[in-house]
């Protein structure tokens, strides 16, 4: 009888060790909780980036879950913890409500990385957060604009949906310039990301006869709308022309406009965070610690900005989002 129990115990122990034995294999199990790709071109690029980096060839066994609803994301994260992933990667729909799940993950010995969006919680609950500093994106763009050393800056500022992260980040730096008097605000109006509305705003400025030489549109679509208004009014735009055109997001078609010299600048909130996280996971797997983190454990992704005079074909293919322009 004792023997029987001993054998049974050994079998149970072996079984319980099995997953650990598999985990000891080279495959790293990760669970990725993200927003759905349909949200925007940015999200689509972000989702594809993670699919392309966390592949079998790179030694990962990755599962993905997409939802814009926080509660669905939370239950998916719980499921990943139950499934025994090694790392949990989260881009949260909302900044709150995550404490309990992150504590569970910590107790289960799962490493948590946040990407793209921060969560309101104790930084001890995650390894690192790879996020964009939205304000920096605006600062980069405005810095570029100041480098153009124009005699006067009469700016038409077309804003995105008021209160959104991207709008706040892209507006801040320019507002500082308006306040300091270095740049003049011809008009500052929201088109709520709507291309057609951006066109109407620029039309109204042209109709009023106010002078302007810079259009700062907070995304590519609105910049395209603004340019359509310029074209109809016979105002030239682009490199060494009457009006400087600036956009954001770096859609491939927009970068082609840069390449053709029709626009001057396109900034990007980088959707590429997967490689940075993958590198940090490798450090942890090798038994090391992630160095150079401050108290908030935030790693700020590098923001790009392209100048029409220096953009290369390679830039467009590497950093451009969405599908390329087909000449028709």
């Amino acid at each position, binding site marked *: 009888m004792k023997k029987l129990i001993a054998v049974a115990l050994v079998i149970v122990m072996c079984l319980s060790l099995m997953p650990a034995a598999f985990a000891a294999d080279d495959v790293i199990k990760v669970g990725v909780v993200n927003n759905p*790709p*349909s949200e*925007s*071109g940015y999200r*689509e690029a972000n989702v594809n980036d993670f699919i392309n980096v966390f592949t079998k060839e790179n030694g990962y066994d990755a599962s993905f879950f997409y939802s814009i609803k926080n509660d669905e994301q939370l239950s998916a994260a719980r499921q990943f913890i139950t499934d025994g992933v090694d790392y949990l990667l989260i881009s949260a729909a909302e900044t709150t409500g995550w404490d309990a799940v992150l504590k569970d993950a910590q107790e289960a010995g799962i490493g948590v990385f946040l990407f793209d969006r921060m969560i309101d919680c104790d930084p001890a609950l995650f390894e690192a957060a790879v996020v964009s500093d939205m304000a920096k994106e605006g600062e980069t763009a405005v810095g570029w604009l100041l480098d153009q050393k124009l005699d006067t800056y009469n700016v038409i500022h077309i*804003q995105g949906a*008021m209160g959104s992260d991207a709008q706040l980040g892209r507006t801040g730096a320019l507002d500082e310039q308006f306040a300091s008097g270095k740049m003049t605000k011809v*008009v*500052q*109006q*929201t088109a*709520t*990301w*709507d*291309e*057609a509305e951006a*066109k*109407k*705003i620029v*039309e*109204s400025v*042209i*109709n*009023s*006869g106010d002078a302007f030489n810079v259009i700062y549109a907070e995304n590519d*679509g609105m910049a*395209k*709308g603004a340019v*359509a208004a*310029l*074209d*109809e*009014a*016979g*105002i*030239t735009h682009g490199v060494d022309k009457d009006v400087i055109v600036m956009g954001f997001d770096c*859609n491939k*078609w927009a970068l082609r406009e840069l390449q053709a010299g029709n626009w001057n600048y396109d900034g990007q909130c980088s959707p590429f965070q997967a490689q940075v996280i993958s590198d940090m996971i490798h450090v942890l797997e090798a038994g090391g610690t992630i160095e150079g983190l401050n108290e908030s454990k935030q790693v700020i992704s590098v923001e790009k900005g392209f100048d029409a005079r220096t953009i290369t074909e390679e830039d467009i293919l590497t950093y451009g989002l*969405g*599908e390329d*322009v*087909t*000449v*028709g």
Partner: protein
Amino acid sequence: MNKNKRGGLSRYSQLLVPLIAILVLVIFNLIRDPSFFSVGLTANNNGDPVLQGNLISILNGASELVILSMGMTLVTAACGGQDISVGALAAIAGSVFVKVLKSGGSISPLLVLGGFLMCCAVAMVFGAFNGSLVAFFNIQPMIATLILFTCGRSIAYWINGGATPTVASPIINAIGSFIPGVPIPTPILIVLLMGGLFALLFRFTTLGLYIQSVGINQSAARLNGINAVGIKLLSFVILGVCCAVAGMIGVSRLGLINHETLLINIEMDAILAVAIGGNNLGGGKFKMIGSVLGAYAIQALTITLYAMKVPSTDVKAYKAVVIVLLVVMGSPVVKEAADRVTKRIRAARRSGTEKEAA
């Protein structure tokens, strides 16, 4: 004679509210900036002559809204409810249009025509879907169209393959902007064409009368041999065509389809245009010209706010105030009060003349 004259006036009294709205905006703008309505001729970047000015911006920018509110008027009159999926359906139609344009190697006029017919067909099918829910299953129009309102832009996303495709072609530019040599923006011409088609439809068919009678009393209409179900269905199919035309204009303006932002929230403006136009949102008698004027009034308000450089955060509040005033002005209570006042004045005048005669 006097009676006839009064009858003739009251036939158009529902147009009073949108006309007053437009008049007030015109006067306000003339006082604010006398050059607001000046229209000039300039050359665009292709070297073609084009008309330019706030008046043109208003007429041009309102095109999609005007076309949608035309269709919305019919649905409202026949079904006593509104379609809230027109923006989503226009996004689907626009996506189909772009999809067809990108299917061929080069964009030929024939391909554009094919794209337009295709997007019309798709929009009519979706319109028929909405219509059959309303006509056969007697579902409240707002609930029936809530389905497409919710999933329509996702369908457009799926058609676009998740991107915001762009098309560049002189033909597309001619549809959304200017035909070379014609200084009037093409969308304005398309609105005139649509208006003309509707005018012909009402002049030479009994459709208008049938829609009114179905809207006033469905059972009575049926007893008189009118196919009420068919009329409701037809009104949604016609609205589908309007969505297709609006979607095509929207896409052609910039040569870009963004399923998230194309004609976003336009359903609310279209319903508002019908309401400002003095049409009964509960169905029945309608005047399409009222909705058209309502649509132009809404656009004029938007352009005025832009010209006034109202801060971005305050635009919606300003709009809301004006709209509240307009809607209250057109409300039955105010109308009755106005009627009472005019009657009293008339009575007073009559008694005055009688006294004089005596």
